[in-house]
Each structure stands twice: as C-alpha cells, then as structure tokens.
C-alpha cells in the first residue's frame, strides 16, 4: 500500500542576545522566557521558513516543499518547534532550517534535535527535550532542587506534555 510519508523535524531555536551577540543557552539576566518577550509563534516560524526556502532554493524549492510543510507545534517558553514535511523533500526543508538566520528579526541558531518518520517519536523526543531545556534553565538560575517542584516550570512541563501528546497527524 502506498501512502504519503512525512518527516518530522524537532527544532530548537537558540536565540542570540542582540547586545553581545552570544547565544543564550540558559536564562540570561533574569529573563525567564527567552523568546516570549520577542513574541515568536508558530506562524512567524512558518513565514521565516518559507522565506528561507524561497531565498536559498527559489520557486522550485518552495514548490517542492510548500504543500507539505507545516509547523505543528511551537513552544515560546523553550523555543521548541515541530515541523512536518514530505519525506522526499525533507532535505530541502532541513537545509532551509539550517540556513535560517533570524525569525521575525530575532537572530537565532536553529538546531535540529531529532528527525523522525512518525509523529509519535517526534512527540516523545519533544517531551524529553522540553525537560532538558527546562533543566538547563533551572541550572542557569541555580535554584535549589527542592524549589523545582513548585516553580513555574513544573506547571509548564505538565501543560506542554499534554499539548504535545494531543498533536494529531
């Protein structure tokens, strides 16, 4: 049986601090939500990706990728994003993600964490990676471990897990 096959890219955007040009891996200078103040969302990521494909691969590239590409999920807290694209064109889309330099004026380093063929594994990888990013934030804030059960991140993790699990193909 022949069916349409997809690739699911789990991408993390590492925002670049505009003042000193450094990538912020953790929480810098008390900014708890590195990109929520930039106001990034799935729509903006999609537009940035479209521009990147058009710039680097032209109309042919966008013609190949455009129909199947879709930003399924974006978390403004951790800057994690799940992108769906047709399997045959996945390399073009991945290349476009790599060649992305800014999303809506915010400089970022795109980092493809995981590539999978089913949404199930994209979800699992996203949940795992979310925890890793939150752990990094907590480490950079240097809060005591006992405090972690009650900080705002715990609620976010629960909420995002439910959200990610609710994603449909």
């Amino acid at each position, binding site marked *: 049986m022949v069916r349409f096959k997809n690739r699911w890219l789990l991408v993390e955007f590492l925002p*670049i601090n505009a003042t*000193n*040009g450094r*990538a912020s891996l953790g929480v810098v200078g008390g900014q708890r939500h590195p990109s929520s103040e930039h106001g990034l969302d799935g729509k903006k990521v999609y537009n940035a990706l479209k521009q990147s494909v058009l710039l680097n691969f032209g109309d042919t590239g966008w013609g190949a990728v455009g129909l199947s590409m879709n930003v399924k999920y974006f978390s403004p807290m951790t800057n994690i994003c799940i992108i769906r694209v047709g399997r045959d064109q996945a390399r073009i889309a*991945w*290349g476009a993600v*790599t060649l992305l330099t800014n999303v809506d004026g915010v400089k970022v*380093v795109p980092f493809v964490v995981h590539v999978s063929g089913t949404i199930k594994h994209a979800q699992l990888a996203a949940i795992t990676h979310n925890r890793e990013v939150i752990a990094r934030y907590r480490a950079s804030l240097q809060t005591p471990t006992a405090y972690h059960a009650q900080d705002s991140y715990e609620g976010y993790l629960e909420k995002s897990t439910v959200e990610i699990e609710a994603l449909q193909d």
Partner: protein
Amino acid sequence: MFFDLNVPVPNILQSSTGKAKQQNVQSGATDVTTFSAAQINALDARIDLLIHLGYTVLAFTQTIHKRLDTRFHVNVLNPLLTQLKKRPGILYLKRLNIVLDEDSEKGFGLINANVNFCNGYDLLSLTPTTQATFSLACLTHTQPSQLTTHIISLPLTLPRLNFYLKHTLIRTALRNGAVFEIDYVGSIGGEFASILHDTGYAELGPGAKRNWWASARELVRVTKSRNIIVSSGAVKDADLRAAKDVANLITLLGMTQDAAHNTLTKTPKGVTLRAQTRKTYRAVMSEPKMIIPDGSMELLRAFVAQTTMDKEAMEEDRGDQQPEELSQTVPTVPDESKKRVREDTNAETAPVAGAGQKGPGPEKVAVKGQAPGQQPVTTGPTRKKRKKNNKPLESSVGSEH
C-alpha cells in the same frame, strides 16, 4: 564524536604588532600577547555553544598572512588554552593557518629552522590564493616531514578561484593524505576570521553565499567527495550550526549521506592523528612489538633442537667431500695487463689524449711505468707529470700482484 577543526581566535597579534615589536626591543620579553577577559569570556561562551551543538574536538585557529616570521610571530594559543575553562571530555587543538599570496611564492617560513616553533601547533594548514602557491601546497607541503601541512583551506567565497583546480595536483595531495577544508560559515553568509576579510580573501553578503555554493560544489566534484573536512570558521555565535545540520547541508552539495557524515567525523579524526606523525621519526606512529603466546616457547625450542639435529646428521652424511669442493674454488685474479696495453695503444693513436689523461690518471700512468718500451712520444708537461707520479705508482703496482 564531531570535529570542528576551525575555531578562529580573535586576532590580537595583528593589531598590536608595532607595539609588540617596540616592547620586545625595550624589555626583551617575547610573550606580550594575552587575551582580554572579555575575549576569553566570549570564546568560552562560544565553546559552550559548540559543545551544546554536539562537537567534542575543537581546533583553535591562528591565521597569519604571507609568511611565518618567528622573530615577530607569537603562538597565542598556548597561553589561551591555559586561560580557558577546563572541560572534561573535550579536546582542544592548536592550528596555524597561513594565507599564501604572490609574496609567499618564494617561501613562507615552513623551513627546518622553524620546526621547533611549528611543533607548538597540532595542525598546520595553508590557504593558497594563487596558482603557484596552490601547487606548492598540494605537491611540496603535503610530503611527510616535520612541517607537513595536512589541511588545504581554499577561499571559497571569492567570486572565482583565480586558479584552476588541476586534477594532478589534487590527486597528489589526496594521495599524500592531505584534506581539503570547507568552512560552512560561507553558506550562511557569515563572517570569517577578520584577517581573511582584511586581506580580501573572504567576502560578505548574498554574493559570497552564491560563490560559496559554486566553489564548494566544484571542490566536492574534483575530490570525488573524498578527503574533505567541514568546519565552522565562524567568529560569531549566530553562524554556528549543529553537526548533523551541517552534514545535511553538505549533502546538498552533491555528496552522499555517509560521505557527508565522514567529513565531520572520520576524515578530521584521521587528519588529527596523521598530524601527530609530524613529531615522530619518519612519520612512524608506533613500534611493532612481538608478543609470544604462552607455551609456544617450548614448541619453538623443540623445533630448533629438531632442526639442529637434522642439520648435524646431514653434515655427517656429506663428511669428507667438503674440503675438496673448497679447494677447487680458487679465487680468480683479474688479468688486467691486456686492458692496460690496449689503453696505452689508444693513447698512442690519439696524441691529444695525453692532455686529457687527467681523468683516468694514476692507473694508466702506472702501466706506462711498467712497460716503458711502449711509451708514446708526448709533449713536455705530461712527461713531467709522469715522472713525478712514478714512484708511488710503482709501489701500488707491487701491492696488486
């Protein structure tokens, strides 16, 4: 394990060369170059990002232009590595890159006098920008020696390489184990090390991106995607990319997936190991050692005993035949007199040869002394010479017989 063999360090030497020279003259100190705290912090942050992106081996690159002059050149990487944060499991390497242009064609300091200096670096690399320096880099400097440059890094963002990537040159370089480097920062349109921009061997902007794709494709084509390494070459955090992303980017250059993966893992690992042979004798990495398994010595001894017994038995069988055989083999003494006479007749027939006899010299004269009757009538100088040489030659003749 991913490699990034090109992490440029801020160029502090170039800006303060004049000052450094003066200070050298005044105080006699050699180490006047240190990085500021801000530079170290920025570099530490960049290393953190690189590690986050999956790299474990990082080579810091110091780039110089035209030639290596040890009077003014200071290895800035040695003090740098002590200032950086210690990170277990991460390997730091030191790399020296020399940008070659017309002025470097007569030599650029990679000479035996500078071996000790160059041993301060783990990797040496060249950026040729002319036809002559490109063939130098491919032919001469890839030969195994103490100053082998293992990495050839071409300026890929220039509108057109001002030389032709000749197949014979590339092939020789590949056979000698050199690798060609692609800096992926050009694909993003990012900034290279400042010295490359200052000297005009790197460009910025959308045009540079297009040139990069064209040149990198050409490089992949001529090398048949073998012996290519991909490194960052980026001076800004924003231009760094994760290793797997870069591998995917390289597949867009027309490389297969596994070849692209090798450009970040196997090939740079190989070149790092091979670079260590610069410091060993004739590029020998280790001495082979014989390991004898347990119990095999007894077998060996038994075997030796058996063979010696066999040999003795054979010798006894042959017995008294041996001395006769020996006596028959009389050493033959070459009979040279005929040849000498013939040479003499030659001299007679060609009187001019008397002047030209200096070459064969003493031997011939000796013969003449032996057979005076056959002496040719020659001019004065040769006669004199003959007389002078007569005595020692007589003795030498005696020793011959």
